[in-house]
């Protein structure tokens, strides 16, 4: 039985190589999102799809129904079985998938974490693609908030889940910036609450913030669900002229709020670029054109020169993009 599988695998491999001789680089890549129904991943998928059209790779997007820690494991197993060449994944857990990712790499599959990393388990993946330098996100957000409240007053943070590695990195940086940078000495962080990336919970936490801290002037919500919920609360209470909401949001969700003045500005990056970069990077590595070592620089159409940083991390852009009334209509994600 095992022999048959090996033979079938070899035949498949030969078949792939044969067809690869015809196309430029015909490899199979799959992107496993956190869960289905999440509009954020549609953008990343868009980048993959367009890049694969140019490169000639086969792309598929799959995702589990729920974002719990172990939900992606069956999908990774299935992709290994299907003999894909590249597995790109937005991980739901920092370590639950270590064993199965090792299994994939042992079979020669390139494992990329896209949009988030498996913190603490970096040895189990080949490279990581992040939208921005995550150490800059925190300070960028603090600066944006400060500019809206005149750099003084009480602020709070509405985050996602308590263990979300991305948010926690940013919050840590925010606290550091607030403590160390004298520009923000009159701004005080009074609370950090967690909305679990659910609209209902985010709303009740936001309401509680407003009730518990009557002197609050601003909330930073570095999560698309949180910022939308916070903006909704501010809008229905009609306090947009004295209370400021900002954070990381999707232009499609925040457009109405920006246009009617509830939110003056918020930030994000372009998820599309992550998919684009991931596809080109994978192509380069599989073809031998790009070496997956720290310090390597390579060029990607539309993105310019990308450097592979420590721990094999790459960023699609350096700083966050700020969205406000002037540019909100230019984006369609």
């Amino acid at each position, binding site marked *: 039985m095992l022999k048959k599988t090996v033979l079938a695998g070899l035949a498949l491999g030969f078949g792939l190589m044969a067809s690869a001789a015809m196309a430029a680089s015909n490899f199979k890549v799959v992107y496993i999102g956190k869960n289905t129904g999440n509009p954020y991943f549609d953008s990343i998928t868009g980048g993959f799809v367009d890049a694969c059209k140019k490169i000639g790779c086969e792309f598929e997007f799959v*995702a589990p129904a729920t974002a719990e*820690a*172990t939900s992606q494991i069956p999908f990774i197993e299935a992709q290994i*079985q299907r*003999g894909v060449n590249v597995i790109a994944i937005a991980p739901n857990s920092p*370590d639950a998938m270590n064993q199965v990712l090792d299994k994939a790499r042992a079979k020669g599959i390139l494992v990329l974490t896209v949009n988030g990393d498996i913190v603490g388990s970096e040895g189990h993946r080949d490279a990581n693609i992040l939208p921005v330098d995550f150490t800059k996100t925190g300070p960028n957000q603090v600066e944006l908030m400060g500019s809206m409240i005149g750099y003084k007053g009480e602020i709070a943070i509405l985050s996602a889940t308590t263990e979300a590695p991305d948010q926690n990195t940013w919050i840590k940086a925010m606290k550091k910036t607030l403590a160390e940078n004298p520009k923000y000495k009159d701004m005080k962080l009074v609370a950090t609450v967690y909305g679990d990336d659910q609209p209902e919970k985010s709303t009740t936490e936001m309401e509680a913030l407003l009730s518990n801290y009557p002197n609050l002037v601003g909330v930073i919500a570095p999560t698309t669900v949180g910022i939308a919920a916070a903006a909704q609360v501010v809008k229905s209470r009609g306090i947009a002229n004295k209370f400021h909401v900002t954070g990381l949001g999707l232009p499609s969700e925040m457009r109405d709020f920006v246009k009617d003045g509830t939110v003056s500005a918020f930030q994000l990056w372009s998820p599309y670029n992550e998919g684009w970069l991931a596809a080109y990077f994978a192509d380069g590595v599989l073809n031998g054109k790009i070496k997956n070592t720290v310090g390597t620089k390579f060029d990607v159409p539309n993105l310019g020169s990308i450097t592979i940083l420590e721990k094999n991390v790459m960023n699609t852009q350096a700083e966050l993009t700020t969205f406000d009334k002037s540019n909100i209509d230019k984006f369609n994600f």
Partner: protein
Amino acid sequence: MSDAPLGINSTVSASHRDAAPPRPLWQVIFVRPETLTFVLLVLAIFAGGQLSPYFLDIRYILDSFTLTAELSLLALILTLVIIAGEIDLSPASAMALSACLFAYAMSFDWPMWICVFIGIGSGLIMGAINAALIIGLQLPSIIVTIGTLTLYRGLAQVIAGDKSIRVPEWYIGIDKVQILGLPAPDLIFIIAAIALAFVLGMTVWGRQIYQTGTNETAAIYAGIRTRRIKTVLFLATGVTASIAGMIFISRLGSVRYDLGLGGELQMVLMAMLGGTYIFGGRGTILGTFLAALLLSVISTGMTTANLLPATQLCVLGVLLVLSIIATNFIYSRTQR
């Protein structure tokens, strides 16, 4: 209707005329809910092969089964609970809680036997809580176990927070261990199935479980200690949950509070698809065993074909309704 007056003479001839002829042997063996499950299993394997050329690999299918081995194990013991006329929706959460405690204890580097003691002990306590509320206080089992499932899950959250608790390297990888050509979790499942099938089908105690589920009052009058049987079953469920938790941890290498979230539905699904009657009194281990395989094959087959999880949900929903229609139909036809 009244062609024969019910006199003393007619009593004898009436019973002779009215006694139903015994069912032909082939009907007894083949016309039962488990057959439907078996047929569905064969169909599913076939369909899986059609949907994706990568599916028909016996190694892959066996390996994929390890993903649901723990829940399948729980489904087996749940079958006994349902046959006895109760239901327990809390094992998945109990599994998470005892697993968290077990991993927590290991993180303190306590000797292994203490950790195991804590793990299994906590499972026992949780089963005891269920038993006390359901049997001691006579509360309806479905609501109690909905309550305890939330409670245990919540406690797991309190203990583990949102972090994952890692375990030492030597403990990880039970699904890589191959015994007799099978991954260890699969083997554990098969052994448990054989053992429970033996208990249920061949022992007096097993017969008593069926009787308790069919008619508890009659069983009590027949001298069966139904309260004791049910208490033992709930305790056993708790212990099985903690054992399943330990297997789970070994497979994943760490544990979070959301271990097995939503698993209660899957376990009940396995029992139902296996022909277990929700109101008690009927069901077999074989049925649940086949149903567990069926569910694993379906989800593996669909995932390998890159079908949307949405489609899987629809298929499962339809299957559940169809299987229960068929089970009811078969049981009503074979009722004497």
